[in-house]
Every structure is written in structure tokens, then in C-alpha cells.
């Protein structure tokens, strides 16, 4: 009886249905787990964690943020079936200890506490400092001494130092940067005249004179800069780690000071938001592992914008041609299949093409024709914003063509015929009836193209992305938009910081944050595309013939 029902159970195939369901469930678990992993790690980065102080059996102290815990491999045996654990601690103080991270065996720990007077210092060099300020000095005289006094005295000094840093940044980037730019422009124009053989004595003299004027302006600004730099050195603080090792540091080296153990939840939330803003708005420091990722966000957005400007007209034009103008036949069908398949060609192939065609062939010719004075330094003959955008445009144009064609197909024939019957020309019915109706399709295509371009890295690595761009592709110097400049990109930032940086462990949180932002952008774009597509489907559902 039992056997019969078991056979029936197998014959009914219910088990196989369940197996299929398990396949789906596992896929869903995988994506859920992945998104959760990115989200938790990315969001956790901003939270100011408590600093934990461990007292070890040998009498020494360790202070830091707890970042991990694991069971020591090979420690599981008959005596301790659970194994022994160890704690990963971010101890910072790279200048004192050499390494940011330290593993501590749980068996070595005697006591654990969270003293409220310890501070967390974000520094311009050497990563974070965890410990206590001991005394604040102005030159050789002590301004404040004792942990509490020194901490209180330090806050306004740090604010002041940050203001000076802003001034320095303005001077270096804007003022001196402009002067350097002008000097370079003079040099190039002189070289251009020489190349054309028109460099006569007076021309050379005027330019040299102008350069001399610029040079003296430069000297004046550089003096100001030197004053500011000495101001940064005015105050210094003697820091003390938990074991009493001291270290003197100029206040100008400190970006921020927090006392996480003394902060309430409200303060921590505030600091959390501040951290988010820092990451979104500031430039990277310390080989991209600290600071913000603003240039990467900006570069990604600008590149995608330029790509969209290039991709939409051509994609739509090609789709309109294929759908509305070309005689539908075998040839068009083949072309359609080919275009469709280009969307499946690996992105790195487009990168190779972009490098060979845009950078070397087109860029090289542009340099030879229009920028001979700068040679042998390439202007457009090297990777840059323009070439990267165009390469991605080429890569995504099939997506736009396919989506636009789908949009055009969804427009009922009655609309076209009605428009033509009312006396409109083909162009008029196209512009006023067909394309507006197909707009959701075009938009879907564009969004999908943008989403693909945002996350794509491989072709960019060959056509102009860099780990650290000295200047933004859009700034206050004429002609404002510098398409020849190299740029930073979120996806490449992940690759570079995660795999090329010397201190991967310290860089991981930053990579998670970047990943979170990138994944967030891509998912939002895709959800937008999906919802537009669904609306479009609903709108035209049932209206075909």
C-alpha cells in the first residue's frame, strides 16, 4: 500500500515540481543574500562604532573597532569542540603599529571596556588614530594638558585648521591652477607659431613678457600659500595610545575628532549622516581608500550623460529606419538579427575597438591636425572622457535600437493610417503620432543603456578611466567641458581600490560603499525601465489590430 502511494507520488511529478521550485528559491536566496550583503556592509561603514579597549593577560592594552570574528582554523579538537575564537580589531595608528588590523585570540583577553574619554582622529596621513590627546602645544608652550582639557581645546583648533585647508585648496586648485594653465597656454601658442614658422622676435618677446608677469603672480600666490602652511603647523597635539606611547602631530594633520564612546544615539545618527555626506561630496585621499568618491560619481554621471547624447539620436534614427522606412524583407531581418546580437558581444571587445579606432586612429589624427603644438604629448590621442563615452555609446546603441523598435511595433497601425488619412505627411505622422507613442520604448531603451553603461568597466579600462584624475572633466577653466581629460568611475574605483591598492583590508569598507552606491543607481534605473515598460504594455495591450 505504502509502495503504491510512493510510486504514485513519484509519477505525479510533484517532487520534480518542487525541485524546480527549489532552483528558483535558491536563485532568489542568492540575489537576496547578495543585496543584503552589499547593503549591510555598505551602510555599516558610516556608523561610528564604539572603540573597545581590551586588557590582555600580558598586561598590555589594545584599543580599536571590532571588525570581525572567526574560529581559529585547526583549533577544533576533542578538548574544545567549539574551537577557539579570535577577534579582528581595527587598531589604526599605522605610524605606530605598522598595520591597521590586528587579530586577538579570545583566550588572551582578560577584560574589555569602552572608556568614554578615548578619541578617534581622522588624519590626512597614516589613517586613523585611536587613543587620547595628552597635551596641546603652541610651538613649545603647552596650551592645554590632561586628556579632558586637551580634547576640549582641540575641537576649535581642528575647525580652524580645516578652514585653512579650504583656503589652501582654493589657492592651489583655482588660483595657482589658473596661472599654470595660462603659462601652459602661452607656451603652446608659442610652439604653434614656431611650427607654422611665424615666430618672429616681437611675438616671442610679448609672450615671454606675459609669462614673466604670470610667473611673478605665481610667486606672490605661492608666498601666501607658504604662510598658510606655516599656520597649519602652529599648533600641535601630543597623542597617547592606550599603552602610553606618545606621538606628536600638527593639528593641521587632523581632519576630524570624535569621541564615539561618549556619543549618544542621536549624535551617532548625526555623525552617520555626516559620514554619508563626506563620502558623496569629497575627494579621495590615501590612494582612494579614505575620503570621498565624489569625482568617481561625477565622472560616471558625466560619462553616461555624454553617452546618452550620442546614443539616442543614432539609436532612434536607426530604429526608425529599420521599422518605418526600410522595405521589410530578408535583408532587414538579417540586419535586425545582427544588431540584436551586437548587444550580446562582450563589452571588452568594444573596449578594444574603442582603443584602436577612437583613441589611436581618430584621436591620433585629431592631434596631428589640431594640436600639433602639444605633441608628443597626446591631447585626444589618449584615452579620455569623449572616447570612453563614445565607446559605451557604440556598445549600447543596439539596446536602444531594439527597445525603440519594440516601442514602434507597439504603436497600432490604425494610428499611423489615421494620421496619414488626415493628410499628414509621413514625417508629420512620425513626429506627432508615432514617436510620441513610442516614447516609453525609447525611454526604456535609454534607461537600459544607461544602466548597462553605468556598471560597465572593462571597456573603460582601455579608453580613459584612471584611478585618480588630477582634475575634473568639467571645471571653471575655458572651455569648461574637457572631453580629452581622463576621469574616474565608480566601477573602476571598485576594481582599483579592491584589487590594486596596497592595503586591501583597510580599503574594503570603501569598496563596499562604492558598490552600494553603484548597485543602488543601477537598480533604480532598472526599476524605472521595468515600470515604464509595464505601463507601456498596459497602455497598448489589446489595441493591436
Amino acid at each position, binding site marked *: 500500500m505504502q509502495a503504491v502511494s510512493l510510486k504514485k507520488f513519484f509519477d505525479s511529478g510533484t517532487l520534480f*515540481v518542487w525541485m524546480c521550485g527549489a532552483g528558483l528559491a535558491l536563485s532568489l536566496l542568492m540575489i537576496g543574500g547578495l543585496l543584503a550583503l552589499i547593503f549591510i556592509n555598505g551602510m555599516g561603514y558610516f556608523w561610528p562604532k564604539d572603540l573597545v579597549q581590551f586588557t590582555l593577560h600580558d598586561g598590555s592594552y589594545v584599543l580599536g573597532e571590532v571588525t570581525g570574528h572567526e574560529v581559529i582554523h585547526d583549533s577544533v579538537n576533542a578538548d574544545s569542540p567549539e574551537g577557539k575564537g579570535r577577534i579582528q580589531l581595527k587598531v589604526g595608528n599605522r605610524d605606530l603599529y605598522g598595520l591597521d588590523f590586528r587579530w586577538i585570540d579570545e583566550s588572551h583577553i582578560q577584560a574589555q571596556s569602552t572608556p568614554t574619554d578615548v578619541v578617534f582622529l581622522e588624519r590626512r596621513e597614516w589613517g586613523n588614530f585611536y587613543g587620547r590627546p595628552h597635551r596641546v602645544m603652541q610651538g613649545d608652550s603647552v596650551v592645554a594638558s590632561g586628556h579632558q582639557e586637551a580634547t576640549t581645546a582641540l575641537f576649535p583648533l581642528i575647525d580652524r585648521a580645516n578652514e585653512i585647508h579650504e583656503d589652501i585648496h582654493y589657492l592651489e586648485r583655482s588660483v595657482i591652477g589658473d596661472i599654470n594653465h595660462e603659462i601652459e597656454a602661452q607656451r603652446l601658442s608659442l610652439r604653434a607659431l614656431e611650427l607654422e614658422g611665424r615666430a618672429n622676435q616681437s611675438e616671442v618677446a610679448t609672450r615671454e613678457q606675459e609669462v614673466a608677469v604670470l610667473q611673478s603672480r605665481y610667486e606672490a600666490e605661492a608666498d601666501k600659500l607658504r604662510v598658510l602652511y606655516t599656520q597649519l603647523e602652529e599648533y600641535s597635539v601630543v597623542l597617547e595610545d592606550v599603552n602610553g606611547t606618545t606621538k606628536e602631530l600638527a593639528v593641521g594633520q587632523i581632519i576630524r575628532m570624535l569621541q564615539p564612546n561618549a556619543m549618544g544615539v542621536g549624535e551617532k545618527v548625526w555623525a552617520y549622516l555626516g559620514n554619508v555626506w563626506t563620502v558623496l561630496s569629497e575627494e579621495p585621499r590615501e590612494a582612494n581608500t579614505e575620503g570621498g568618491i565624489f569625482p568617481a560619481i561625477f565622472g560616471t554621471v558625466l560619462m553616461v550623460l555624454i553617452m546618452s547624447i550620442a546614443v539616442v539620436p543614432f*539609436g532612434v534614427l536607426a530604429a526608425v529606419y529599420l521599422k518605418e522606412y526600410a522595405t521589410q524583407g530578408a535583408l532587414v531581418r538579417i540586419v535586425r538579427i545582427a544588431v540584436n546580437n551586437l548587444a550580446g558581444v562582450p563589452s571588452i571587445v568594444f573596449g578594444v575597438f574603442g582603443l584602436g579606432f577612437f583613441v589611436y586612429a581618430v584621436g591620433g589624427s585629431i592631434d596631428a591636425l589640431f594640436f600639433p603644438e602639444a605633441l608628443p604629448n597626446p591631447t585626444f590621442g589618449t584615452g579620455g572622457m569623449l572616447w570612453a563615452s563614445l565607446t559605451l555609446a557604440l556598445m549600447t546603441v543596439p539596446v536602444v535600437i531594439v527597445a525603440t523598435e519594440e516601442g514602434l511595433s507597439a504603436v497600432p497601425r490604425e494610428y499611423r493610417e489615421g494620421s496619414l488619412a488626415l493628410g499628414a505627411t509621413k514625417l508629420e505622422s512620425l513626429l506627432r503620432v508615432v514617436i510620441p507613442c513610442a516614447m516609453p520604448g525609447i525611454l526604456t531603451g535609454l534607461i537600459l543603456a544607461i544602466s548597462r553603461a553605468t556598471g560597465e*568597466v572593462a571597456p573603460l579600462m582601455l579608453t580613459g578611466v584612471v584611478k585618480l584624475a588630477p582634475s575634473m572633466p568639467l571645471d571653471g577653466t575655458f572651455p569648461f567641458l574637457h572631453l580629452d581629460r581622463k576621469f574616474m568611475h565608480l566601477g573602476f574605483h571598485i576594481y582599483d581600490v579592491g584589487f590594486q591598492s596596497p592595503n*586591501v583590508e583597510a580599503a574594503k569598507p570603501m569598496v563596499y560603499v562604492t558598490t552600494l552606491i553603484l548597485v543602488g543607481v543601477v537598480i533604480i534605473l532598472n526599476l524605472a525601465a521595468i515600470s515604464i515598460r509595464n505601463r507601456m504594455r498596459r497602455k497598448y495591450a489589446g*489595441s493591436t489590430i
Partner: protein
Amino acid sequence: MPPSDVTAQIDDLPSVPPAKTRFVAQGRTQRKMRALLDRIATGVVWVGGLATILSIMGIFLYLFKEVAPLFISPESESQATFQTNMIEQPMDQALAIGIDQYQEVAYLIHKGHIEFFQVPSGEPIPYEASQDPITENIVAVAHSAGRGHQYAFGTDDGHIVPVEVGLTPTFHNDIRTIIPTMTHDTPIRVDPTESGIATLAYQETEAGFAVVMVSQSGELWLTVLGEGEGLMLVDEPVITQTRLATYPDGQVTTLALDSLAETLMIGMSDGRLLHWNLQDPDLPQLSHTYLLPNASDRVTALSFLLGDRSLIVGTNKGIVSVWMPVPTEGSGRPIPYKLVRSFTSHDGSVTHLSPSRRDKGFLSTDSTGQMFLHHSTSNQTLLEMRVGDAAIQGLMFAPKANGAVAFNADGTFHVVNIDNAHPEVTTETLFQPVLYEGYANPEYIWQSSSGSDEFEPKFGMWPLIFGTLKGTMYAMLLAVPLAVMGAIYTGMFMSPQLRGIVKPIIEIMAALPSVVLGFLAGLWLAPLLEQIFPAVVGMLILMPLTVTAACIGWQFMPRSIQIRGQSGVDLSVLMIVLFVTILGCLMLNTSIESWLFDADYKQWFRSVFDLHYDQRNALVISMAMGFAVIPIIFSISEDSISNVPKHLIAGSLAMGATQWQTLTRLVLISASPGIFSALMIGFGRAVGETMIVLMATGNTPILDWSLFNGFRTLSANIAVEMPEAPHGGTLYRVLFLSGLLLFTFTFVINTVAEIVRQRLRTKYSQY
């Protein structure tokens, strides 16, 4: 369709302007304008649309254009031929010729005199010796291998004079002029026998030079000018002179020294090749004696190829061959040379061999005026040229390997341009095993560059293609079952509402940037997997069991709950079951390791299967790339399953077939072309995936199917090497070839998939 629907839709239309003002009242000009505009627009759409499509297609052509030069056979062109009047009686030994790197000035040395010529005009350049002219009677000239033009002149009284010919480019107003010079050092006595120099070999070294001389009496002497032994305050150069052997009766025909002067090869008239080891100049040893394969042949020319690891040998029968040290079991040091390849034979006796200073190519000339260009790695004779009809007396490959000079016994001087950009690449070197220098057997190797200029580039593509296939295969192993099963479940057994939620989730999975997956695979999954590998094995075993158990358990649930299964309860149950299984396996990680793998899985795999576990391995790739491929296969399969006409399914069910029977006998068969095309497209995506493999494999181009080590794919290889590849170089073009391969491969696969899908569509549109 009810009329109300139509109006509703028309109302929905975005901003169709009021028709009356636009279309009703208008004059003839306006109508003409409109017609004109329409025609212009038609033109614009035609031109723009076609141009866009053609330019996309142009990618293929451009890639092809960049690759093509690899396979274009080299060409040569005579740049100049002119008569010289220096030759009274041709004397092979005392003659040398050369040319500068820009091929603008050539020179001819004969019996201590030098004459410079302008190329291509052949006009002599007036030249005044900067030092005292060499007055001795020169009887032999030996050329030192290396960058410059260094020679030793052998005099009739047994001295040598080290000579350097300088061809220095100077620039004035961007115009280049070559300034020819010749400088010489003090003569040094190298022939203690005083019988006269018969044959000479000369090599400059870091410390000084080495000279090997065969006297008329047949004695072989080595003279080394090297650093002193360091006891003295100032290291005086020290000359050591050693007699190596005596080979009477003019047996020695030719000598070759390598560029470190550590190996001496002697060609004998009886077809023997003697291999002397001079690494210790105080204790030179005859290490090996080799025989030409044909005993009656004489060795007539010898030279080392760039890098000193291959010896080229020419014989009086016109045979040109390459010998290499081939390491074998038990062969001591120095490793004995073996004949590894022979080239097209000359008609006459080989007179000169001149190695390229850029690659493993070399020129050979013979007594009938033929000049051949060979390449060792690619084992081919690239060019056959003729420079006059008489014997060639002097030969030199131009410094940039883009030309050659040859001097003919009839007194003519020939300058030849050689266009030979990519000699090392043939379809054989790309796709077949090649015997490289230092290897015992022909092998598939990809190693495009190293620190040294003398490196032999190895462009075997097979390890990369293999890596691509390996990664793809492992990814598909994971992705195909999950994706197809998920698609079957979604398309066949799921309520439309739930499907509307599940499909977008999976589509978002498809949109995840691969750099994110690569980062997580490399920095999160790979270290984690190393720890929890036993748990993963446990999951593989346990998951089917727990799912079966859950399924059987579900049968005993009350009917009311079972019916609700349609709205996704069973899916949630499954997810919980799987989640618990995964958690359980993770917690039992160490226990599983002790049950299955003797408490140390790495050790276990090493001892049982001889597999070594690398952290970044194919298993990590299988999961990460599988993750990237699942949504693609899922979407397309699901589409084709849900596109099976509903009335067919309803019919099947109405006839009494169970859902499972309907699925296997109707739905899957109808949807199989769609699923097939899904697999193809997924395959194409996995083949071209770059960032995941770049970040999560070690990128080692090895040939090993093991799940536990890494590999290098074509795409990752491009990403790694392209930024370093000089524009237009061989590596650059080989990488373009990789790109072209990827392009062609994915394009063909996608096209097949698309055609299959379209046929499916036409097949079912008739129902």
C-alpha cells in the same frame, strides 16, 4: 474591441495637437514645404539609419583590419644597389659591412679601411679618421654581437685592434644627420704562436672583451680581458690567455661566441660542432661535441640568436638549422644542444648568418647570391631574396630588423628594406604547441612579455581559449540547472501575480554590474569559500534531500493549505527549507570536514586526487559567473515556456495528463528551441565576461581542468595586457585577434540562438 476603448486610448495619446490649425487651411507653398520637409526627413533617416547600422557592422571590419597585418607575409624591396671600387681581391675574413638604424648611412670595412656611403644614393661620404689610421696589415675581422658596431681587426703579426664604428644621429632643426666615426683601441697580442691568425671571434663584455683565435698552425687560443682579482686598489684590466686545443689542417671553419662570452661554438669541416664552456675563463672545457645529421656536410657559418639561447648553423649544402639546449632527464650543465628545426635550403653553401637584434629572426646568405629571412620561433622561412649572382661576402641585419645590407663578391653593395613587423606570429604559433627556448617539448604557452628585451614572446592562444571554455563550463554547470528549473517553475506552476514579482527581481539580478560580482567573488566569496568549502559540499548533498523531505511533508498538510500553495506559500516554504539547510551546513562546517575529508579538505584533495587548492579558483568563478548568467537563461527560457499556447496546455490537462506530464511531454518540447537559445545566449555572456574572471581568478594561463585552480580567459587577458601593449605591436594585434575571436564566437552563437528563436516564434504563431 468596444468603441469606448478606442476613444480612451486616443485620449491617452500624448499631446496630439488640435488638428484644425495644422492640417486644414494651408496654401500651396506650405504644402510644398511640407512635402519637401518630408523628403528631406526621408533622406536623413535613410542616411542616418544606414550609417548607424553600417558603423556598428564596421566594428567587425575594423577589428579585422587591425588583425590582418599579423598574417600578411613579409615583403622586401631593394632600396639601393651600388658598385664599390674597394675590392681588389675578395677576402672573406677581412670584410665587414653595416648600416645605421635609420638606414641612411652604410659602411664597408675591408683590410682595415672603412668607407661610408649615403643610402640610397651610394655616394661615398668623405670621412677623416679621428685617430691615427690603422697601419697594420689586417687579415681578419670579427664582429661582436650586441647593440653597437664593434669589431676586432686581426693583424698579420698576431694582434687584434678593437674598433668601434659610430653612426650617431644628430638633430638640427628637426633634420637628422648621421655622423659616421671610427675609433680604435690599442692593439693587443692574441696569437702566441706567431703563425698568423686564421679565424677570429670577438665579443665585448662588461669588463672588457674575449677573443678566440685559431692560428694558421691550428692552435685555438682564448684571450680574455677582464677585471683584476680585486686585491689591487685600482682594478687593472687583466689579460688571461689560454690555449684551448689544437685542430690541425684548417679543420676549424667558423667560430661563434655568445654575447656574454661564456659559450664558444666551433664549426668544423668534418661536420662536427664543438661546444666549449668558457664560464670560467681559467678553466675552459669542451662540454659537448655534436654531429651534423648528414656526416659529409661542413659547417660554414655559425651565430647565436638574440638572447644567446639558440644557435644557428649553416652548412656547405645550404642547410640552415637551429640548435637549442633542450633539457632532458639527467642532462648535466651545460645542457647539450639539439637540432630542433631546419629551414628552406639554399642552393649554394651558406656564407653568412646575421641574427636580428629585435626578435628571434635571422638572415642567411649563400654562395649564389641568395638571401633568406628565417624566424626561429615560428619555424618558417619568411622571405627569399636575391642580391646579385655572386657569393655574398658580407651581411648585416639592420639594427631595427627592418632591412639588411649585403656585399656581393662582384663588388656590389645591396641595401634591402624588409617589412617584417610580426614574424613570430603564424597560425601554428598561435594555435599549436611550439618548442620554445628552454623547454624540453613543444608546448602551448601564453607569455607575452618579460623584463628582458631578449625574451622570446610566446603567443600560444590555446591556454586562453582553454581558460575561457573552462570558466564558461563551470559557470554553466551551476547556472543551467538553477535557471532552467526556476524558469520551468515560474512559467508553468506560478500564479501570474507572483510571476509579476519574481521576474523583475531576476531581471535586476541581470543588471548587477559585473565589477560588483567580481569584487564580491574575489574579496568576499573566495576567502569565505576557502573556509566553508566542506559546508558547500554538504549543501550540494543535503539540499536535494531536504527539498524531497519538504515535498513529502507537504503532501501530509491539510488540503486547505495545499491549495494556497498556488499563491506562493510553497515557494516560501522552499526558501525557508533551503535557508535552514544552508545555515545548518555552515554550522556543521567542521564536522562535515572531519566526516568527509579527514578533517582537512585541502590535504585530503591533495593526497587523494593530487589537487591543489588555490584561493581564487574555478569554483568561485562558477558561482560568481553562474550568478551573472542565471538571469539571462532564466528570462529567455521563461519567456519561451510561458509563450506555449495556453489552449494546448489546457487541452493536455483536460485529457487527464498530470501537470508534470503536460510539462515534460508538451511544454518542454514546444519550448525546447527557446530554452536552447537561452542556453546559447547565456553561454555567449559567460564567454565574454571580463571583470568577474579578472578579479576572481589568479589570471594564470595554465592548462588544467581542476576546479581548484584559476585560469586566464581571452577577455581578462585583453584587460590585463592591452594597457601595456604598444600601439601597432605584435602583442597589440594578437590582443585584437583575441577580441575578434570573442566577437565572432559570441556573434555566431547569438545568431544561431536568434534564428532558432525566430523559427520557434513562427512555428507557434500558427496556433
